[in-house]
């Protein structure tokens, strides 16, 4: 497998409070990695850094060059960062946003835009015409279980629906790496299972690599290739566990001893 995203020795503090220390993390192409950790440990902070929205105090975030977004922007960055880049085929995106699709912890739907325009926002931002963007976004509504909500305003949607709109919006950002901060937390078990299934399929189709955060250990074991445990104060990646089980993983796996064994190990690590 090929590395697509590397975070090297990331440290970050808020004022005097050290939150992250010497985080090393890699993501392979097509891999689904889960970040597990108790509330307040620094998961969202790490995501903000990986997405380039925040600058770490030290350390760097590298993205495989061929997977970076926007050509023009890429050239600009090459000029600026080339001498600092350690590996030739990696681009230093530390503190540079726009290369990675990011679904934030809150759904952050814009209250003044109807649902379809919310979903199509990344397309419009990237320069597509409003009509074209709407058409493209509309073609996904059924698969996301959002049919009929196109013309509604976000306040008229349930929490689970809002989350699916946010997921669709993130998907339409169209980058090869996605960071999802608790993407399925507001979904009921049945909807969640179907969204999982859909997401795994999409990942394979478009060779998407995903790093996601969850508080649900069962969910982590069910869909991840690998689970990273973020722990401590300041937090580091204390453990990594590879879930060695072919996908899709069904009900049999959930009820198997193997599943329970994974669960037991993770609980001990947390």
């Amino acid at each position, binding site marked *: 497998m090929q590395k697509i995203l590397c975070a090297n020795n990331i440290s970050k503090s808020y004022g005097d409070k050290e939150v992250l220390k010497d985080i090393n993390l890699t993501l392979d192409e097509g891999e689904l990695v889960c970040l597990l950790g108790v509330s307040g440990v620094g998961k969202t902070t790490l995501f*903000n850094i990986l*997405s*380039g*929205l925040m600058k770490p105090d030290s350390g760097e975030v590298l993205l495989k060059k061929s997977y970076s*977004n*926007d050509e023009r*922007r890429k050239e600009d960055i090459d000029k600026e960062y080339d001498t600092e880049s350690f590996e030739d085929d990696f681009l230093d995106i530390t503190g540079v*946003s*726009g290369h*990675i*699709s*990011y679904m*934030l912890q*809150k759904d*952050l739907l*814009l*209250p*003044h*835009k109807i649902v379809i325009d919310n979903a199509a*926002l*990344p397309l*419009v*931002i*990237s320069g597509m015409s409003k009509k074209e963007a709407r058409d493209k976004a509309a073609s996904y509504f059924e698969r996301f279980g959002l049919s009929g909500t196109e013309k509604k*305003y*976000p*306040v*008229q949607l349930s929490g689970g629906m809002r989350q699916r709109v946010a997921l669709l919006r993130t998907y339409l*950002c169209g980058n090869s790496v996605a960071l999802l901060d608790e993407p399925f937390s507001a979904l009921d078990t049945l909807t969640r299972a179907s969204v999982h299934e859909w997401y795994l399929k999409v990942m394979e189709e478009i060779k998407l690599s995903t790093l996601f955060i969850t508080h649900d250990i069962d969910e982590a074991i069910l869909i991840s290739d690998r689970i990273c445990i973020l722990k401590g104060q300041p937090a580091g990646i204390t453990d990594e566990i590879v879930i060695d089980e072919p996908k899709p993983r069904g009900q049999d796996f959930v009820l198997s001893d193997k599943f329970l064994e994974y669960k037991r190990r993770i609980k001990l690590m947390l």
Partner: protein
Amino acid sequence: MSKKYSDNKNKKYMDIVVPCIVLVAVLVIWQLACTFSLVPSYMLPSPVRVVKAFINDFDLLMQHAKTTLTEAVLGMVLGVLLGFVSAALMDAFKVVRQGLYPLLVLTQTIPPVAIAPLLILWFSYGIAPKVVLVVLVSYFPIAIGLLEGFESVDCDLIFLLKSMNASRWQIFWHVKFPSALGEFFSGLKIAASYSIVGAVIAEWLGGFNGLGVYMTRVKKSMSYDKMFAVIFFVSAISLILMAVIKLIQKKAMPYKYIRKQDE
């Protein structure tokens, strides 16, 4: 849910009925006080006389109102434009904000009545000094309302747009401006009442036309009934202006007025 909804409706109904009862009661007491000569009739005309004065002078009042409204609306439009531009600049450049904001607050401590004579000296007796005064009084609530709106935007929303590689302009257009609309309209409502008052004050101090000019004339002839008529008329105009703004707001921000249960 439906119980809460009908309660809500009931409350809204009461919100209208109670003040109406109070208003009618005040008018009745007033009328009775005049009929039984509890107060000298030349000092406090009865409501009926006020209404009669209004009807008699209706054409004249409308003509003056046209001038006052022109000044108020023109001044407000200019105030909105100026307020918008300066709020956007203050939001975009920290230096502008640091330099301009204290100055803005300082100018607000100067009462408009105090500068109106100066404006008349500068711009003479036409419509210009009135418009300038209205611009001055309506500018502040709009600039501050918009600035606060721009700054109250959830910074995660800005993060989201940045993660989509949005430009500063796109962030402004898709997030900041729409989020500030609520504050903008609150500021606009305040500006509307200020601007009518501002125009009338400027007219008091000199001019040929306008409700303020009418006021000074009827004061000189000691027609108390006409004075009362024009006072109520001015407040009615302010109320109507605010209602119009509310209507525009409803059109501009439909999402603010939908409830979840509506389909």
